């Protein structure tokens, strides 16, 4: 796809980079002059997917998290990818409240947040082969 503007970030799997990812995407998307509500939705969804890559994909171990963000007209496309453990049962993983790490006080709401806050969510994953989360948000100009 040919975007109006596009950026790619590769970052270490380090929980400090959750905030970095949010701020970067927010700064990039702010070029479209979106409403505060849309900015918050996108920031929160990015935070969920990057956090998942770090704690589930890489089990808090070393690895790289890939973030791609582009926009065309008023549509924002975001892709977050890891080369981590992957997801065995995507349907189950996406159910509200399902978490494989209850001992870490995970709420199991990450995918539900992304689904609620974004206009489209696609999860591509396979056990042992990493995970790609693709999201689209149609923004309203403020």
């Amino acid at each position, binding site marked *: 796809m040919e975007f109006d503007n596009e950026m790619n970030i590769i970052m270490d799997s380090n*929980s*400090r980079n*959750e*905030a970095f990812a*949010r701020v970067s995407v927010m700064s990039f998307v702010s070029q479209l002059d979106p409403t505060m*509500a849309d900015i*918050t*939705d996108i*920031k*929160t969804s990015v*935070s*969920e997917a990057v*956090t998942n890559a*770090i*704690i589930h994909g890489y089990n808090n171990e070393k690895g790289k998290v890939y973030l791609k963000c582009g926009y065309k007209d008023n549509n924002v496309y975001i892709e977050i990818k890891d080369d981590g453990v992957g997801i065995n049962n995507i349907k189950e993983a996406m159910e509200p409240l399902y978490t494989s790490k209850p001992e*870490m*006080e*995970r*709420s199991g*709401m*990450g995918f*539900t*947040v992304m689904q*609620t*806050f974004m206009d489209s969510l696609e999860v591509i994953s396979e056990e042992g082969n990493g995970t790609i989360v693709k999201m689209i948000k149609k923004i309203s100009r403020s």
Partner: protein
Amino acid sequence: MLVQSFLEDRNLVIKIEGDIDHHTSEEIREKIDRDYFREKAKNIVFELSSVSFMDSSGIGMLIGRYKNIEKQGGQVAICNVSENIERIFNMSGLQKIIKCYTTLDEALKEI
């Protein structure tokens, strides 16, 4: 991110400033659990007016405290939810589990 706490009767008031995500949740959790036992508190009231961001890790942290404190026979309440986190708050259904108040005074009176 900054967590401050003070005791009001046996209610531990927790004021969080900044972002609540997975990274900061761990620090927040440790500080709260430490202060709760040190201060021999019974209940916890979260004052969230200065929270700039929260994702589902924050929901998990709040529910985690709720479960722990319930086991101790105490209660958890939330007050002053900032505008920034209203959207995730409403969608999470947290209010069905933890009581939410508009002001700290109200929360301390009702708890």
